[in-house]
């Protein structure tokens, strides 16, 4: 029966976005295609690919950043004829990456721009998908839902994501720009770290934010396999374990810094290192 013969009962659903006839029918696809990336990104499945790819970039950064930070535990080393904190040397090394090919600091900025792009795309895709999802169920269930599989992590992705973004601004303002860091010294990573995390409220911010990040990763790492279409009986049983492993690694590693600073393991000692003035003498 044609829908219109239902009269009042039938509610035809209008094609609000006007994609035109579907491409698989005999009608064929009308008009010129949009550029590949824009065309792909215009669908929800395409946006999920973007979520997954930018998520992988973010995971790579977070894991690398955490491992780099572990250098804080290596204390003071001999460096260029003086004594310096290993993590400070590492921080300077990041600016020196690819130096004979690129000028000082250029490669770090290329990586930073890549990360900023990834974060912005991740947020934009998440935002537009959330809007789409809200519109897909304008009238909520009037009774309580009884979720079976959806877990705390998957249900709170947008909230843990917002916490991580807010923390990101705090973290940059604290340890990159130095706005909230008492006696901030550019490049003195170990000193700034100790100065910031010795404050109990700040240490708590770092702990809470990294737990939120861990929860975000617990669902994100598992979820990206589905979004990327990586589904294979050979590795499917490892996906949950990988997600738990990465989330645990990040939380344990990153939460250790505020705790170890408060415990006095990370404790800046100005007399242990060769100061710039001494070197120039």
């Amino acid at each position, binding site marked *: 029966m044609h*829908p219109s013969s239902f009269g*009042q*009962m*039938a*509610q*035809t*659903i209008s*094609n*609000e*976005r006007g*994609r035109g006839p*579907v*491409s*698989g*029918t005999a009608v064929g696809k009308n008009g010129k*295609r949009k550029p*590949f990336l824009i*065309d*792909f990104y215009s*669908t*929800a*499945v*395409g*946006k*999920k*690919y973007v979520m997954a790819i930018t998520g992988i970039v973010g995971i790579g950064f977070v894991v690398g950043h955490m491992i780099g930070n572990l250098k804080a535990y290596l204390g003071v080393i001999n460096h260029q004829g003086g004594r310096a904190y290993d993590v400070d040397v590492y921080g300077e090394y990041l600016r020196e990456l690819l130096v004979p090919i690129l000028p000082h600091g250029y490669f770090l900025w290329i990586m930073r721009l890549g990360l900023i792009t990834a974060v912005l795309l991740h947020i934009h895709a998440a935002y537009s*998908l959330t809007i*789409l*999802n809200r*519109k*897909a*169920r*304008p*009238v*909520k*269930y*009037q*009774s*309580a*839902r*009884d*979720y*079976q*599989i*959806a877990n705390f992590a*998957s*249900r709170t*992705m947008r909230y843990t994501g917002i916490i991580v973004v807010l923390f990101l601004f705090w973290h940059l303002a604290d340890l990159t720009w130095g706005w909230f860091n008492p006696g901030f010294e550019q490049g003195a990573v170990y000193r700034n770290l100790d100065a910031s995390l010795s404050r109990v409220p700040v240490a708590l911010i770092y702990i809470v934010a990294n737990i939120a990040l861990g929860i975000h990763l617990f*669902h994100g790492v*598992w*979820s990206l*396999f*589905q*979004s*990327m*279409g*990586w*589904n294979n009986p050979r590795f*499917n049983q490892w996906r949950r374990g990988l997600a738990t492993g990465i989330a645990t690694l990040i939380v344990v590693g990153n939460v250790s810094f505020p705790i170890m600073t408060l415990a006095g393991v990370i404790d800046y000692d100005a007399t242990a290192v060769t100061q710039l003035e001494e070197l120039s003498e």
Partner: protein
Amino acid sequence: MSHLNNITIKIWRQSGPADSGRFESHLIDEISDEASFLELLDILNETLIESGLEAIAFDHDCREGICGTCSLMIDGRAHGPERGTATCQLHMRKFSSGDTIVVEPWRAKAFPIIKDLMVDRAPLDRIIESGGFITAETGGAPDANLIPIPKPVADASMDAAECIGCGACVAACPNGAANLFTGAKMSHLNLLPQGQAERFKRAEAMVETMDEYFGSCTNHGECEAACPKSISIDVIAMMNADYLKSKFKNRKSLSR
């Protein structure tokens, strides 16, 4: 055979698409534990009609879990508390005396309520229209097994083909997404040799038609838990993979 007593049914009543709707409570004094959930509603409707009230409208057809017509949100779960069954295969023995059972229609923008518990699931048909077919020669029926298909492939395709199109995946999804339905319908054909001719046209058309009506997948897995055929969310990953490939193939390299 035993009975359940004092079952309270809190059920959604809505006179039409424009009505705002409300819950209505009915007390069932006694019901056989062998009654199916739909039979409970039949019995309730009989008493409503006898007392001059309007019967509750709900969708049902085969009552053996193969047609995909029944559609009820029972106690916050699509098709009720039993896993891997449709509402018609849910029996009163899964409940206890004195229970309050809340019954709601499926809710999604794509599934407007027609009346009471009946919803219009036409957007699922739109997705099928866009790519849920293969090209086959007309004429005499071909011999069976003319096209060799490896057993695991046939099995995977059959698992996806189990989809009865009830829409429980959409109802259960916190985002109102139809990815499990579309993934099942697509994988069912894309896995088989007979489906290869239209494979990438199909992937693109079905995903983009789905996009016009439904939300997006956030990989909660609620659809798999609600599916009366327990179709795995593996089909969603297969759909995503084929959609990306289709975006390349349908442009310039369709022959490669």
